[in-house]
């Protein structure tokens, strides 16, 4: 069970009030007519599936009904931060790699969780 901080309601709420909505920060090709089929296909169908830090969109479905972003560790399931739409994450794969000693330590933590 997650307790998720909604950046719009400004408080922690139970997971039951939220829905995950897939990968965040996907940029629509500026000019769809001009981009290649491959670029359009990537935009439409292909998503990252990293082992580690992942940025996702969630919606506070039973609460304020706003979309926001969640940075979540896909191994430990730990939510590292939540932030509003239009904002940039402060926790990224790079920033986590720089602060944690080894990838193994993160993995073990995940097994425990």
């Amino acid at each position: 069970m997650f307790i998720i901080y909604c950046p719009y309601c400004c408080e922690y709420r139970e997971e039951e009030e939220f829905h995950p909505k897939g990968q965040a920060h996907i940029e629509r090709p500026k000019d769809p007519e001009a981009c290649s089929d491959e670029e359009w296909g990537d935009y439409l169908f292909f998503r990252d599936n990293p082992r580690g830090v992942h940025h996702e969109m969630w919606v506070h479905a039973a609460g304020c009904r706003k979309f926001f972003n969640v940075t979540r560790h896909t191994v430990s399931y730990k939510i590292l931060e939540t932030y509003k739409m239009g904002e940039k994450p402060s926790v990224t794969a790079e920033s986590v790699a720089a602060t944690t000693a080894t990838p193994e330590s993160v993995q073990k933590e995940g097994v425990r969780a």
Partner: protein
Amino acid sequence: MSKVATFDTRAEADLPVATPMAYSFAHSGAPAVTPQSRVVLRERPLQGHLILRGGAIVLDEAVRKVLGINLPGEPQALTLDESGQRSVQWLSPDEWLVIVPDGEAFELETALRHELADAHYAISDVSGGQTLLELEGEGATEVLMKSVIYDVHPSHFKVGKGVTTVFAKATVILRRPSETRWELVVRRSFADYTYRWLLDAGDEFAIGVER
């Protein structure tokens, strides 16, 4: 004044009106209030419910002028007028719920539209889509603890707070206008479900229905 077409949803003709709870009172039972009742349930029927959407600053100015209440800018906040009959509740960063007594909604909507003029906003009359239930009594908090996932302990849920959350398998807007009273704004289509759930959950507190 904007060019939006509006109309008063209350018919001028003297037609019989029924609230969503009318069906429930007739079909799902309504236990009487007894001296043993630690919770009392009542409906505040046929209130005017308006949803305001737009920027907080623009709406605040209009609401203060027309209704004399501040638009709550803080999340989860609920403000009432002196009589306690009119309220404005924060629902999301650009959305508020206004509840006023029966017959005031259209007049209020018209006045707000006049005040807001060409500003970027939306007002929807949702009076027909939801109703207001009240829970009162020392057992009310415990009935809610059995029903909603939100923490309703008085230390966390202070007077003047209102949240949208999960109630059993439905959603509810839960508000605490005073120390002893809780308000539930429920959708019309879930009204009977919510009502029957409350009767069941309140059974151990000898819940009574005031009509």
